[in-house]
């Protein structure tokens, strides 16, 4: 942190008035889809810091802008406020804009707000501006996307006269108008504009406002202007069942009382219609000609005739989604292989140069394996966010929500949940990160909780092993292969359960008030590559910083669990570590590796704490058809589901096992109980696959959910409900199957 930043932080902490000594704070605020974030990136370069708003898990992005105009360079902190159509709020999330603007609820107090408005949609955008001006907020207006309205550009000077603040035409996408904007910011910071807009409301409403203003807490009424504006805000925000935070009870009671006494009068409509009347009256002076149907909308509607067509639209939609999925699923594979190869090469390098010791094992198996466990997610995260960036930027993401809303609504999910859900088929970790495209916390949480139920690619090796070992390669009706059908059945089963879980959890654990959909289909635009790349970079570094250390620590803990106590005379590598290590070895190498002869001695893993734990939980697993060996495999699978395969290999004393290793399959097939009967039946295989489909055997997923929700509650809940679901379903499969005579 720079000296300047330190002083600014302390100045803000003590609530000091703006002085030249501290870094001025600038907020970027505006409707969604106005290019606010593009402008933020333009102004701050690539130095965004990402945090959270106090008390709520909504991302707060800030960066530094250096102003060069008029005198020595001056650093200003810029914060990107989440997009909002209005300051009136019903939930804590919608309250952020107001709190940020006023410096409430532990937010630092801003010196200036830059309102970003879409030059082509002034009417809707100016609504927010009127609210800010009524609050007596210091404002500069960026008339953005001016390039899109070249044939009917709004007059910045006329707008400036109307609002009484500087208005600068900008084109953030192409970096135009930024110098002028920075100059206006400098000027406004040097001489704060003190222009408050006073709108005259109907007399009866003015009387209501006075009554509400009298009930405002003293901190809210520092000036008469602001008190009146906050009375307006309170009257149009507070309701008997709102979810606002920090609203004074006296004020709440007064607002409800005033609304109740309004009788036939319609307070909301009085406020909103009066503001729009003011804007409407001004519009003819702002544009060369008034268009009811702007050209840029017409162009986009023509494209929509194809992209939202009942037949072609869906065909294109499905192709695009398949392409995205294909890239996640298979195009990321070479990169993942490369990372795995590098991991195993570095482990080999250390092994070759350092003498055998517990520390060496910790380094090679725990640390290098753990780092590999983290980095291995990067290819899919980068690819997914590349796709999301393109989809969002082009305006197609809103169309995805529009197309899928009917289906997603039935499941209680947001239309935007579709892309994260689909990504869940590849890997839950990037899918959970992708839930950030949804604005509401409830929608994000619900999607996060069900995404890990989708059949991710890490489950495939487990299914392959079980199906290969326990199900005959025969055909149903001499036509359809049993093994292939089973694999398809597992996909269908997981999808069905995911949708069911969304329906149930949405009505129970994450019950929120049902919010009617409001969607804007922004005009189609060419996606910006630099914006997308910078978002990919941000997401990837955030993942490494936030979830990386947790995954690393858990890998080391698991290594320890399955490695201690160490057997006295066995020189074999610690088991889980070897399992993880081997997971990262290139496949060819694995397959050509000779399998050591089976041994009758108890394997080191059996004596480890993990092995003992596996034996301890055997009574619990018995009703599902599992024995302690499967139990140890399940514990090992926490590192990553596919580690189940190699852990099971170690239990059987097979060094380098993967899902296609014949000795491991034979071991499983020929495993006998004490009475000589086969230990593992196809029924047990089915039960085990069902268990894997539903249980949360993935510490990385839990870690990412923890980072994204900033609470222990939700990852624990997720682990609990998924494990319970898996247990019950496996129990039903196994016991039901036995009753039926399988």
């Amino acid at each position, binding site marked *: 942190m720079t000296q300047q930043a330190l002083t600014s932080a302390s100045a803000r902490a003590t609530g000091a008035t703006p002085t030249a000594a501290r870094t001025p704070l600038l907020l970027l605020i505006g409707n969604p889809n106005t290019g606010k974030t593009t402008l933020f990136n333009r102004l701050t370069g690539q130095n965004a810091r990402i945090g959270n708003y106090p008390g709520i898990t909504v991302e707060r992005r800030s960066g530094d802008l250096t102003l060069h105009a008029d005198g020595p360079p001056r650093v200003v902190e810029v914060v990107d406020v989440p997009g909002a*159509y*209005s300051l009136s709020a019903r939930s804590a999330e919608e309250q952020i804009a107001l709190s940020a603007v006023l410096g409430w609820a532990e937010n630092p107090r801003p010196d200036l707000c830059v309102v970003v408005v879409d030059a*082509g*949609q*002034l*009417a*809707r955008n100016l*609504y927010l501006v009127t609210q800010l001006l009524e609050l007596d907020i210091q404002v500069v207006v960026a008339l953005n996307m001016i390039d899109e309205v070249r044939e009917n550009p709004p007059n910045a000077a006329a707008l400036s006269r*109307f*609002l*009484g603040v500087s208005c600068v035409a900008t084109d953030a996408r192409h970096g135009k108008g930024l110098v002028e904007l920075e100059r206006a910011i400098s000027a406004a910071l040097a001489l704060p504009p*003190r*222009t*408050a*807009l*006073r*709108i*005259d409301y109907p*007399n009866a409403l003015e009387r209501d406002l006075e009554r509400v203003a009298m009930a405002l807490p003293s901190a809210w009424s520092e*000036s*008469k*202007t602001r008190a009146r504006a906050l009375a307006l805000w309170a009257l149009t925000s507070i*309701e008997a069942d*709102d979810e606002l935070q920090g609203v004074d009870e006296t004020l709440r009671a007064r607002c409800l009382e005033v609304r109740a006494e309004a009788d036939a009068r*319609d307070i*909301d*409509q*009085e406020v*909103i*219609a*009066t503001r*729009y*009347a*003011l804007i*409407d*009256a001004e519009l003819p002076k702002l544009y060369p000609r008034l*268009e*009811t*149907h*702007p050209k840029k*909308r017409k162009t986009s*509607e023509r494209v*929509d005739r194809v992209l*939202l*067509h009942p037949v072609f*639209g*869906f065909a294109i939609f499905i192709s695009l989604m398949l392409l995205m999925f294909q890239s996640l699923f298979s195009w990321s594979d070479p990169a993942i292989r490369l990372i795995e190869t590098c991991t195993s090469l570095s482990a080999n390098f250390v092994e070759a140069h350092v003498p055998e010791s517990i520390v060496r094992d910790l380094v090679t198996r725990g640390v290098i394996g753990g780092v590999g466990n983290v980095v291995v997610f990067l290819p899919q995260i980068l690819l997914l966010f590349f796709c999301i960036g393109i989809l969002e930027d082009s305006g197609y993401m809103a169309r995805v929500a*529009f*197309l899928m*809303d*009917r289906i997603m*609504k039935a499941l209680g999910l947001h239309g935007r949940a579709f892309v994260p859900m689909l990504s869940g088929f590849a890997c839950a970790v990037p899918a959970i990160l992708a839930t950030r495209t949804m604005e509401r916390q409830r929608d994000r949480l619900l999607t996060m909780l069900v995404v890990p139920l989708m059949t991710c690619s890490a489950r495939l090796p487990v299914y392959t092993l079980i199906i290969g070992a326990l199900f005959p390669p025969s055909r149903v009706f001499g036509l359809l292969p049993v093994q292939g059908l089973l694999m398809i059945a597992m996909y269908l089963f997981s999808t069905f359960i995911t949708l069911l879980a969304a329906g149930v959890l949405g009505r129970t654990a994450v019950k929120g008030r049902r*919010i*009617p*959909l*409001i*969607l*804007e*289909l*922004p005009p189609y635009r060419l996606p910006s590559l630099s914006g997308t790349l910078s978002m990919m970079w941000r997401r990837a570094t955030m993942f490494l910083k936030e979830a990386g250390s947790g995954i690393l620590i858990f890998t080391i803990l698991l290594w320890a669990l399955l490695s201690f106590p160490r057997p006295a005379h066995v020189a074999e590598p610690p088991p889980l570590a070897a399992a993880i290590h081997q997971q990262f070895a290139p496949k060819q190498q694995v397959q050509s590796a000779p399998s050591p002869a089976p041994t009758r001695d108890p394997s080191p893993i059996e004596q480890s704490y993990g092995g003992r734990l596996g034996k301890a939980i055997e009574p619990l697993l018995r009703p599902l058809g599992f024995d302690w060996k499967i139990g140890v495999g399940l514990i090992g699978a926490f590192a990553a589901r596919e580690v189940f395969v190699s852990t099971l290999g170690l239990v059987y004393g097979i060094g380098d096992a993967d899902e296609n290793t014949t000795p491991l399959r034979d071991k499983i097939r020929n495993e006998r109980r004490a009475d000589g009967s086969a230990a593992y039946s196809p029924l047990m295989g089915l039960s085990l696959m069902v268990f894997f489909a539903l249980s949360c055997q993935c510490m990385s997923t839990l870690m990412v959910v923890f980072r994204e929700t900033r609470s222990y509650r939700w990852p624990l809940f997720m682990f609990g409900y998924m494990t319970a679901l898996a247990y019950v379903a496996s129990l039903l499969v196994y016991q039901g199957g036995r009753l039926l005579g399988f």
Partner: protein
Amino acid sequence: MNLAQTRIGQVVTVSHVAGEGSFRRRLMELGLVPGTRVEVIGVAPLGDPLELLVRGSSLSIRRGEAEDVAVSLGETASSERAATPSTAGRAEGNSGLASRGLARSAP
């Protein structure tokens, strides 16, 4: 009639917005106040939601909520000018900035 009963391509004028408090308010804040011209641009392939053009901006809402928006066919004189809704009871004064309420307030 209400918005859910309109056909694609129709131009209507909002006469009344009903419905649940906060959502109704949000609809009006997005420009759907009585007197506003609304053009029905399209319907999602699965029949829901509707895409509307309101004050030069796109707005999509579901049929269930569109039923709460009462409309009349065609553009009224007031909607064409996108002007004052009758129910708002606008305060007098339409000439010049000061009387429209732009005033400098004391800091």
